[in-house]
C-alpha cells in the first residue's frame, strides 16, 4: 500500500476525500479503518462547513429488535417513496446507521438519563457532531486540509480517476494536486445559493466534477423542497414551526396546518404577499428549553428584539434544492461507485432516491444516508487503492467550464450566472409549482448562461473558484430543469400544475447526463434514446 507522501507534483495518498461534512468525514473514517492513507480536502473548515454543522441532524433509526421495527420503518418510507425507493437499500442504511453511530461515543458526549443510560444515539447536535467527526479522523491519521477547495478531478488515460487539483484559499492561494488510488466526492448537494443555513459552500461541485468524469445524475427533478425561516435570516430550523400559526398582511390566519401540504400552502400565500408567523402555541416547557435543544434558533430573535412567542414576525421559505431534496450523482453499486473507475460518491453528492424515493428525507433519512454512503464509499475506495497504486504519471485534468473554456476566454462574472440560477430555481411559481411552459423558459435561460460559461469562462488561481462554483450551480440547475420537464406527472415533491396526477408509466428513476446537450432517460431503459429530452 502507498505511504502518504509528498512528491514534486503534489501529495500522494491511497484515498482522497473531497468534502469535509458528515459524509466526507464518515468516508474518511471508513477508509482509514481499512488501513488506507487518507487525505481529506475541504472548501471551508472540516467541522463548521456544510449543512450538518449548523443543524441538529436526527438519523433514520430502527433497532434490529424487535424485527418489525425495521419492517415498519421501511414500509412507512416506501409509502412516500412513490415507487422510486429500494427496500434493500433502506435496510442497509438502517443497519449501518444503527451499528455505527454509537461508535462515536469516544468523541461525542451522548446525553444520558438519570440512570446513566444514553438517551438516544440518533439525535445529534450539528456543531458537536462535526467536531467529534473531525477529532475521530485526525486520530485515525487522516490528513485534513482545510480551506483547500477541489476544482477538478484528474484522470488516467483509461478514464479511471486518479486524483484531484484545487487551490488553497488562505495564505496566498497556492494551487495543489493530489494523486490517489481512489477519490470520493462528498462535496454536498446544493441549495442553488439560497440562504438555507450552512449551505453557501454547497454549490453542486461534486455533481459537476463527477459529470465531467462521465458519471450520470439521478433524481434531479426532486429539488422542490423548501424550509421556513424568519425573513432575511438563515435560520431554517424547523422544530418550533411544528406549532406555528401563519397570517397574511391583514392579520387573517392562513390555512396551513402542520402536515405534508404546509409548504405548498405557505408558498401560495407568499406568492400573494407577506406572511407572518406566531409561535404562541409552542408549549411553555418547550419555549423554556428551546435554547438548550437548538441553541442557534433564538439568535436572530434575540438580536432583532423579537419575542417570537408573543409577537408575529415575517417569514419566508428558503429553497433546499438537493439538500433536503433528493437528486445527485447516480449510484451504480452497493459500494457507492459511480460507474467511473476510481470514483465514489457519498452524502448529498450521491442521489438519495434509493432510500428517500420521491419525498424529502428530511434530516433523518438524509443523515443516515450520509453516514452509510460515506462508510461504503470509504471502504470500497480503500480496497481499490490496494489494487491501484496512486501515481501522477499520465494524469490529465478534466475541468472544463470555469477553467478551460472551449472558446476564447473573456471576463465572465460568476455573480451574474449565480443570479440567473437563483432566478430560475428559487421562485415558488417556477420550481415548486411547475409547468411545462415554465420549465421550458427556465431551460432556455439556463442554456444561454451555460453556453457562455462553457465557451468563455476560464481563470487561474483564486479567481477560478467562483467560476467553478457558478458552473456547478448552472449545470445542476439544468439537470434539474430538464428532468422536471421530462417527468410529466406529479410524484412526491415534484409537482406539475399541468400534470397533477401520478402517471403509473413514470414509476421509474430518471437519469440525466451531459453538458452542451442535457439528455434525460428512464433508468430502466438501457439505451439513452428510448425516452429522450434533449435540452
Amino acid at each position: 500500500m502507498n505511504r502518504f507522501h509528498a512528491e514534486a507534483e503534489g501529495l500522494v495518498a491511497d484515498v482522497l476525500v473531497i468534502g469535509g461534512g458528515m459524509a466526507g468525514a464518515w468516508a474518511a473514517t471508513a477508509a482509514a479503518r481499512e488501513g488506507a492513507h487518507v487525505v481529506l480536502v475541504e472548501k471551508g473548515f472540516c467541522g463548521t462547513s456544510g449543512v450538518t454543522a449548523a443543524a441538529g441532524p436526527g438519523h433514520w433509526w430502527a433497532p434490529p429488535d424487535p424485527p418489525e421495527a425495521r419492517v415498519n420503518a421501511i414500509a412507512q418510507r416506501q409509502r412516500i417513496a412513490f415507487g422510486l425507493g429500494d427496500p434493500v437499500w433502506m435496510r442497509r442504511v438502517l443497519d449501518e446507521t444503527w451499528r455505527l453511530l454509537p461508535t462515536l461515543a469516544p468523541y461525542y458526549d451522548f446525553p444520558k438519563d438519570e440512570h446513566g443510560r444514553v438517551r438516544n444515539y440518533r439525535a445529534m447536535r450539528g456543531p458537536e457532531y462535526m467536531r467529534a467527526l473531525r477529532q475521530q479522523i485526525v486520530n485515525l491519521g487522516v490528513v485534513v486540509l482545510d480551506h483547500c477547495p477541489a476544482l477538478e478531478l484528474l484522470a488516467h488515460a483509461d478514464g479511471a480517476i486518479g486524483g484531484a487539483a484545487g487551490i488553497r484559499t488562505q495564505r496566498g492561494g497556492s494551487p495543489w494536486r493530489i494523486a490517489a488510488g481512489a477519490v470520493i466526492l462528498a462535496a454536498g448537494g446544493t441549495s442553488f445559493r439560497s440562504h438555507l443555513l450552512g449551505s453557501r459552500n454547497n454549490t453542486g461541485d461534486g455533481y459537476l466534477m463527477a459529470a465531467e468524469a462521465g458519471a450520470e445524475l439521478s433524481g434531479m427533478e426532486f429539488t422542490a423542497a423548501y424550509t421556513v425561516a424568519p425573513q432575511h435570516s438563515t435560520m431554517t430550523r424547523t422544530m418550533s414551526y411544528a406549532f406555528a400559526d401563519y397570517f397574511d398582511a391583514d392579520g387573517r390566519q392562513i390555512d396551513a396546518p402542520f402536515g405534508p401540504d404546509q409548504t405548498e400552502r405557505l408558498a401560495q400565500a407568499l406568492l400573494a404577499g407577506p406572511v407572518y408567523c406566531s409561535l404562541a402555541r409552542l408549549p411553555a416547557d418547550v419555549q423554556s428549553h428551546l435554547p438548550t435543544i437548538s441553541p442557534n434558533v433564538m439568535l436572530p430573535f434575540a438580536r432583532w428584539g423579537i419575542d417570537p412567542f408573543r409577537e408575529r414576525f415575517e417569514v419566508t421559505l428558503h429553497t433546499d434544492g438537493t439538500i433536503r431534496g433528493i437528486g445527485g450523482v447516480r449510484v451504480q453499486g452497493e459500494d457507492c461507485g459511480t460507474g467511473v473507475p476510481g470514483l465514489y460518491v457519498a452524502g448529498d453528492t450521491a442521489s438519495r432516491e434509493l432510500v428517500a424515493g420521491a419525498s424529502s428525507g428530511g434530516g433523518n433519512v438524509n443523515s443516515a444516508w450520509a453516514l452509510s454512503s460515506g462508510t461504503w464509499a470509504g471502504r470500497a475506495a480503500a480496497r481499490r487503492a490496494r489494487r491501484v497504486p496512486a501515481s501522477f504519471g499520465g494524469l490529465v485534468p478534466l475541468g472544463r467550464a470555469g477553467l478551460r473554456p472551449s472558446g476564447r476566454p473573456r471576463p465572465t462574472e460568476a455573480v451574474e450566472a449565480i443570479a440567473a440560477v437563483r432566478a430560475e430555481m428559487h421562485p415558488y411559481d417556477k420550481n415548486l409549482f411547475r409547468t411545462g411552459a415554465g420549465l421550458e423558459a427556465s431551460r432556455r435561460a439556463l442554456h444561454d448562461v451555460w453556453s457562455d460559461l462553457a465557451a468563455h469562462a476560464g481563470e487561474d488561481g483564486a479567481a477560478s473558484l467562483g467560476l467553478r462554483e457558478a458552473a456547478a450551480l448552472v449545470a445542476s440547475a439544468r439537470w434539474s430543469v430538464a428532468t422536471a420537464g421530462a417527468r410529466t406527472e406529479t410524484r412526491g415533491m415534484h409537482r406539475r400544475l399541468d400534470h397533477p396526477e401520478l402517471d403509473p408509466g413514470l414509476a421509474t428513476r430518471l437519469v440525466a447526463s451531459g453538458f452542451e446537450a442535457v439528455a434525460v432517460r428512464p433508468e430502466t431503459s438501457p439505451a439513452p434514446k428510448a425516452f429522450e429530452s434533449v435540452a
Partner: protein
Amino acid sequence: MIELVIAERCTACERCIEVCPSNVFEPTASGPPAIARQEDCQTCFMCELYCTADALYVAPNAERPEPVERAAVLASGLLGQYRRDSGWDEWQGLYPNEQWLMETVFRRAAEVAR
C-alpha cells in the same frame, strides 16, 4: 452577516480565521482579524461558537449588512449567547445538550394537529 470583531475582547488567537467556512476573515499584522470579505459570510454563527473570548457579533440578516453600534452590542448581553447555550468551554455542564427532546416536540405537534 458578521458585523463586529470587538478589539478589546479579541485575543488574536485567529481561531475564527481557521473555522470560518467561507473565509471572511483576514489576519492583520498586529491585533484582531479584519472582516475582509463580509459579503461571503453565510450567517451560520459558527465563528461565535468557536470564539472563547466572545469577541464576535454576527447580525441575523443574511441578505445585506446590518451595521450595529459596538457599545450597544457590548451592553446587550448578546455576545457569547450561542457558545453559552451550547454548553461549550466554561459553560460545560451548566447548559445541557437537550437535542434529544426534539423528536418529542415533533410528536406532540403531530398529536395536536390530529
